[in-house]
């Protein structure tokens, strides 16, 4: 079998987080728009366990929403969504996300598209995994310019969960809501403690010893290149064609 691609490694790392046996089971995972890597990880978790429902927003088929685009938020408010993915134009060391902009409000220096559902989802979904491929001091900042969605909340504020990990193109961090602080858990092949430190604008703790992000096991690669690629193709055709061209060709044939 062909070695794991970098994307497959990221997918595998996220799948391991989804399936973390120490956490509440992810029976229903929702995926925001334009997130093929988290989507693939969720589909892989579904293939592995047979018990994960994956709802991809904006998907023409196969999502559970028949009550309009607001239904995801109603489901979430009720506690019926277990795990969600978020990113951000900026992410700081306390887990705060900025999806709005930089400079005078609402973004006179840099304007991102907007907060989408982040201010709500981050607090209402019991499990959130942060994913941002770009790992740079521009994205991972000491302090976000604006807080679209806070990493932690004071006691007394209704909140179901927190970010539990941050996955980037270079590394995997865990997050402690008590300390409002990340811990570097593993670096991807080709990266080191130093290269990650150099590319990260915020301070964080380090796991001892620091691991290398593991490749997906061969069985997972097999699932990715077969049923996961097939499930992804209608919604993420460009991604599937780039990563798994054979699967895409088999589908088109």
């Amino acid at each position, binding site marked *: 079998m062909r070695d794991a691609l970098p994307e497959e490694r990221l997918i595998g790392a996220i799948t391991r987080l989804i399936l973390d046996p120490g956490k509440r089971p992810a029976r229903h995972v929702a995926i925001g728009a334009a997130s093929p890597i988290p989507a693939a990880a969720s589909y892989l978790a579904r293939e592995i366990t047979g018990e994960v429902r994956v709802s991809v927003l904006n998907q023409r088929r196969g999502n559970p929403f028949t009550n*309009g685009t607001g239904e995801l938020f109603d489901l979430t408010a009720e506690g019926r969504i277990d795990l969600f993915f978020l990113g951000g134009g900026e992410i700081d060391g306390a887990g705060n996300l900025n999806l709005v902009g930089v400079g005078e409000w*609402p973004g006179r220096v840099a304007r991102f598209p907007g907060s989408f559902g982040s201010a*709500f989802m981050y607090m209402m979904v019991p499990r959130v995994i942060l994913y941002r491929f770009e790992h740079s001091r521009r994205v991972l900042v000491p302090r976000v310019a604006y807080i679209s969605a806070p990493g932690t909340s004071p006691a007394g504020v209704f909140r179901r969960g927190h970010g539990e990990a941050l996955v980037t193109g270079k590394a995997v961090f865990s997050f402690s809501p008590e300390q409002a602080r990340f811990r570097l858990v593993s670096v991807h092949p080709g990266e080191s403690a130093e290269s990650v430190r150099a590319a990260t604008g915020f301070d964080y703790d380090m796991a001892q010893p620091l691991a290398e992000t593991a490749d997906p096991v061969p069985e997972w690669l097999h699932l990715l290149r077969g049923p996961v690629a097939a499930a992804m193709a209608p919604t993420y055709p460009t991604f599937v064609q780039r990563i798994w061209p054979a699967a895409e060709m088999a589908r088109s044939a």
Partner: protein
Amino acid sequence: MRILELDRLAAEIPAGAMVAIPPDNSATCAAFARALVRQGARGLRLVGVPVSGYATDLLIGAGCVAEVQSSAVTLDEAGLAPCFTRAVKAGQIRMLDATCPTMHAMLEAAGRGIPFIPIRGILGSDVLKHRPDWRVIDNPFQEGDPILLLPALAPDFAVFHAAAADRQGNVWVGRHHELASMAHAAKRTLVTVERIVEGNLIDDERMAPGVISGVYIEAVAVAERGAWPGGLLDEYPDDAVHFLEYARLARSEEGFRAYLARYVLRVTAAAAE
């Protein structure tokens, strides 16, 4: 209910009106937005339900917009919304940031005729800090539980595209239930449709669940492929290539003018297919 020509329908919108429109993946009123540009609409206050896309960016670029209230303005796969981004940086429009479920909830409150509605989450977000019209109170049913209240939002107009209307003004929107929320919330609702059908859509048990009653609909215009470059249910997919072309051209003022000349000012959406 009146059946009008597209440009006549767009002329119903006066300068300064607050207009709710759907994003690109939700039966957006793209042909209607182009008609608004053609007639030189001014001072519009656009409402994204819950986010905004091509139609909003086009109207901003053409100088029709004073204010946007939305959770995001984005061309999705085609990237940032170029006219929006330029206008925000230049301070040319007022941006009222929100977060997706607050857009839905504020419209829902208006559609239910209640003055406000609570929502969980959001506390601690700078979005809240910049919304003086939102209020945090102590939950009257549970001490020590701060919760956000949102005021009802009743736009002057809701405008969207749909597959079909009948002559009683009933409109079939299928699974796009968010369009019903828009219509319930807005003071007046204008709709473009692919076609007018005979009979009564509400009398058909298979169609009725996806119908917005003519009670809410003021006027309809036929605009074939009226969501283009957005898609419409299983009628046509979105036109990803055109979104990329728009994003590329709109990156510069000149490119945007060229886009207007080619796709908006002289031709109708149907002719652009």
